[in-house]
């Protein structure tokens, strides 16, 4: 009973039982039902459902824009984390709290706010000579907003733990600031950055509430996958909807797995903190 011998506090059996029970009730059973209800349609129908050109185009759009949004956040999220950790300034606490706002706000509110702002007649939208709302750019914007906290909050603690001494040591050895960033800071950040990106990506691919208000939903150009799932439900095609949902889940799972693996390998190779 090596598990018991390692625990200092008693009660492992009971707490483990409760954890397992609640986890199954909340996560495993619903997802299993998704698989179960898809099972009945057979492989052929499943394949033809997910390879429908309109579905494929939505999958491609969703993945592409999610990737671009994460990439944006890798740059700006890291920058925000850097500013919050390394500098002292007035209103730092407020900025720190603002980062979490996309988590707390109902996504529909985010979506409506963005659509109102960036519509062709909106406060911000009217200053651009190209359309933002109701195009893929609008989707990108919504995904950037909802996935921002993941990267900032993943990078922040690592940056906090990173001592300035390393950078000073590198400096005394004659390294320039670019080299310091590339050889000293980035390797430390990389595992956290990868993990944050993975979570942000998973969140972005499944995002519905905010995107629905700002996407144009025109098939083959600005239609995201959740809209196709909704349209299937509106036709009472629960099976088709769960097939696509399941497929999306598999994609997200594979991506999370790859990110986790990459993070694990990176932290092992670099000997960095996770």
């Amino acid at each position: 009973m090596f598990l018991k011998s390692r625990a200092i506090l008693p009660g492992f059996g009971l707490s483990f039982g409760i954890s397992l029970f609640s986890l199954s009730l909340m996560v495993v059973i619903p997802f299993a039902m998704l698989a179960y209800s898809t099972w009945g349609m057979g492989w052929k129908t499943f394949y033809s459902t997910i390879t429908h050109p309109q579905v494929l185009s939505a999958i491609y759009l969703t993945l592409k824009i999610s990737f671009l949004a994460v990439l944006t956040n890798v740059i700006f999220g890291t920058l925000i984390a850097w500013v919050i950790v390394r500098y002292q300034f007035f209103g730092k606490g407020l900025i720190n709290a603002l980062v979490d706002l996309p988590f707390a706000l109902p996504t529909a509110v985010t979506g409506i706010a963005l659509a109102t702002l960036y519509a062709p007649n909106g406060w911000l939208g009217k200053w651009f000579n190209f359309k933002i709302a109701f195009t893929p750019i609008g989707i990108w914007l919504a995904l950037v907003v909802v996935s921002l906290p993941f990267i900032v909050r993943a990078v922040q603690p690592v940056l906090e733990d990173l001592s300035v001494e390393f950078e000073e040591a590198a400096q005394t050895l004659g390294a320039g600031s670019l080299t310091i960033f590339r050889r000293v800071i980035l390797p430390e950040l990389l595992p956290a950055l990868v993990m944050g990106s993975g979570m942000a990506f998973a969140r972005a691919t499944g995002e519905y509430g905010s995107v629905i208000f700002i996407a144009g939903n025109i098939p083959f150009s600005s239609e995201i996958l959740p809209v196709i799932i909704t349209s299937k439900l509106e036709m009472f095609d629960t099976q088709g909807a769960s097939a696509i949902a399941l497929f999306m889940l598999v994609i997200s799972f594979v991506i999370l797995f790859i990110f986790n693996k990459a993070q694990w390998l990176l932290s092992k190779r670099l000997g960095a903190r996770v």
Partner: protein
Amino acid sequence: MTLLKKLSVLVIGASLVGSVVAQSAQKNFLNVSYDVMRDFYKEYNPLFLKEYAAKHNGATLNIQQSHGGSSKQALSVANGLQADVVTMNQSSDVELLESKGLIHAGWDKEFPNHAVPFTSATVFLVRKGNPKNIQDWTDLTKEGVQVIIANPKTSGNGRYSFLAAYSAALKANNDDHDKAKAYVKALFKNVPVLDNGGRAATTTFVKRNIGDALLTFENEANMAAKEFGENEFELVYPTYSIKAENPVAVVDTVVAQKGSADIAKAYLDYLWSEPAQELAASLYLRPSNPDILAKYKERFPAMETFRANDVFGSWPEIMKTYFADGGVFDQIQQP
């Protein structure tokens, strides 16, 4: 239905649609309806309660309303939401409940006018002064005209709009389906945004200022024109359009279990009463009572309308031919 299958429908429904599976209290009376009918039933319920109390020695009821997208609501009822009555915007939503055994066949004969207390029609809402001079269906496919329609895949409103456009083209081209398809293809080329529901489409048109014409129900168009500025929009009545029928039905299995069959019947019957029909007319729904329709005739200009079922067959057939995957709507969307 096996227990497992029931459970799967329940869990999928709850997790995907986010529907509430209510184990409602027995004394409550629940009317499950679609979202734009909220205003009507909010005023109708007190009317009915007064009538009900007068007939039953001051007896009172707790009437609850549930509103949302019509098909989503139907799915919730199919998954176990304990609705006494459903008041939907399309008979396919009631037919789903019939196919699941919750409502007996022949529900559309239990009440007058195919169980439709009042109707609406698909009309155009345009900007003040009608700058693009949109008068009829053919104007919508012109170069440079932008049309806002709700997504026919996700909304009953959009389906009615699609069928109205298609049918108008059929009529103009001696029932040539190829020409009708070409027309709707050209029409949807002019659609910059496909919103998920009728209300969202209205928001896009009136608040976001996108599009030259909004295709929606007459009552919604009137409400939008009234609520968002008296002098900003005007209604255009096409010469030929679809009659949007909003059927009502008693959910037989639920009322049998709750013992509320009489209340449910009385609740829906009262929709054909004079005060209820007047209320409908005041909210720009075309009353089925001809006297009241005549009384408000300046509100409801005469237009030639058709029933979807008369032109396109039953709703399951319509859904299969036009809106299911690979149907006509999908075909015309192909680039």
